């Protein structure tokens, strides 16, 4: 008789070797994830979804209004027919045209039609302003919407309460698509138009405008201008940390080193800056090394970047080695290059191996 396995109890440990394999694999499963980019795309999609909803509402309004008019007409015709076929004391008391829709419902036979039409026509208790306004103030606009954080968060949600225009699609074109199609100037104008609005879509548009100018148009000054606008208009914007970091990078790129250093220094004291400290120290190190020719200062920044780990740390080690090389410290450079190769993010492996070979000659 075989012994029954205790399969309904907590299992024993997997074993040291397997556990170590899992730990290493876990590290790799978590590697290479760009949270900031993911959030940017998510926000973009939410803004687009909100725009699509507005467009749908705008397109649905005239259609529903037409249905309403037809129903109302049918109600009137039906009322007249009823008057002719079976005169009712309430109905004949005054002509149908003079009665309000609510009063019209007093006739039991015409109630369903009249009630339906009342939902689409301006009655005494409804705001004036035509059929469209009545539709918007009616059941469609007032139906409790599915909880939607975009609508809750964005002033753009107010747009859904404003009179919807059939041209909502024109107001929310896919500017990124224009850029993808190789029409960056049109994309720029498109983003500018969107950025002139309010809410999440304006915020995203302003940030994307900066990226477009920086990456596609090569217009660093223009990108700085867009980022400056973003930061002043959306001081609590969801992409504020990215905008500030990009601003610092661009300042360095256009040679405004002192401003870049001052701004990055301030950024390091903010919570968002502390989260990106590795990148910021690396950037500062590059300014000191490349533009200000100060390896001492640069190395201090690179050392700080190394302490924060991640991809920036590997780069910092590499540039630290270059600094050592530039001051003629071969042993220091070799040690730094070797440290770089031992890391897991050695994307410059071939180049570093070449440097090491040359240094050992």
């Amino acid at each position, binding site marked *: 008789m075989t012994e029954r396995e205790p399969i309904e109890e907590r299992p024993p440990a997997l074993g040291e070797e397997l556990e*170590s394999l899992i730990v290493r694999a876990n590290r790799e*499963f978590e590697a290479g994830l760009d949270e900031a980019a993911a*959030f940017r795309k998510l926000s973009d999609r*939410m803004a687009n979804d909100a725009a699509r909803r507005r467009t749908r509402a705008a397109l649905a309004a005239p259609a529903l209004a037409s249905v309403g008019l037809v129903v109302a007409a049918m109600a009137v015709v039906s009322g007249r027919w009823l008057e002719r076929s079976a005169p009712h004391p309430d109905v004949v008391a005054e002509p149908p045209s003079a009665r309000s829709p609510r009063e019209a419902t007093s006739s039991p036979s015409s109630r369903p039609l009249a009630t339906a039409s009342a939902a689409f026509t301006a009655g005494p208790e409804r705001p004036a302003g035509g059929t469209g306004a009545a539709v918007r103030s009616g059941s469609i606009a007032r139906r409790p919407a599915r909880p939607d954080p975009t609508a809750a968060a964005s002033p753009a949600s107010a747009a859904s309460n404003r009179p919807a225009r059939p041209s909502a699609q024109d107001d929310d074109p896919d500017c990124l698509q224009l850029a993808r199609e190789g029409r960056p100037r049109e994309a720029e104008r498109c983003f500018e138009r969107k950025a002139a609005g309010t809410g999440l879509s304006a915020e995203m548009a302003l940030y994307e405008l900066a990226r477009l100018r920086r990456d596609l148009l090569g217009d660093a000054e223009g990108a700085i201008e867009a980022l400056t606008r973003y930061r002043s208009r959306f001081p*609590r914007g969801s992409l504020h940390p990215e905008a500030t970091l990009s601003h610092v990078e661009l300042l360095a790129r256009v040679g405004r080193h002192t401003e870049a250093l001052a701004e990055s220094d301030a950024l390091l004291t903010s919570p968002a800056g502390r989260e990106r400290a590795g990148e910021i120290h690396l950037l500062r190190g590059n300014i000191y090394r490349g533009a200000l020719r100060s390896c001492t200062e640069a190395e201090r920044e690179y050392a700080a970047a190394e302490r924060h780990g991640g991809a920036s740390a590997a780069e910092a080690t590499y540039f630290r080695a270059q600094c050592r090389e530039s001051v003629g410290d071969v042993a220091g450079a070799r040690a730094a290059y070797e440290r770089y190769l031992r890391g897991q993010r050695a994307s410059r492996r071939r180049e570093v191996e070449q440097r090491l070979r040359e240094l050992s000659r």
Partner: protein
Amino acid sequence: MGTVRAAASPLTELEGDVDPPLLDCVQGDRTAWRHLHRRYYPVAAAFLRKLGVGERDLEDASQEVFLQMFRYLPRFRGQAELKTWLYRLCITQARRVRRRRRISDALEKLLSAAPEQAVVSEAGFCEQAARRRIEAALARLSTAERTALVLYEMEGLSGKEVAEILGCKEATLWRRLHYARKSFKRALEQTTPEEGV
């Protein structure tokens, strides 16, 4: 097991962090959303990968998870932990991706234009090799076994938490895990360290 499971879990590393006030998120405070996303995105994306969601579907899948999360956050009553809910959303999403992928793979095969996903081989990187081995072994498990094993062994959740996420009794979980571990070990033995996915 304890040490590894604790070290393996991205959530345990986060436990010291504080969730943004959910009320702020519900009220549409974008900074609070951002905080929530920054905290949970790495957990969700890594978990989706472990459930077999490929890189080409990962962006869409994690976006869907957070769209659902943001959309339904007002209905979240805090009866379960947020991370438990997040894991459930991921499991549902991974299932959808698998279904879609099966269809599109079948179509690609039909059209004889199956672009195989390039596996970037960086020999010497032990983490990448480990991931490839684990992925290869996980791919041989059934969906239910894989989910249970990933949640318990890789995410480092307790049996109670995993049972809650999977909506089963703890005894059922242990049984499932027992078979999952057997298959997993067998599959690992059959894969060489160099084997890709």
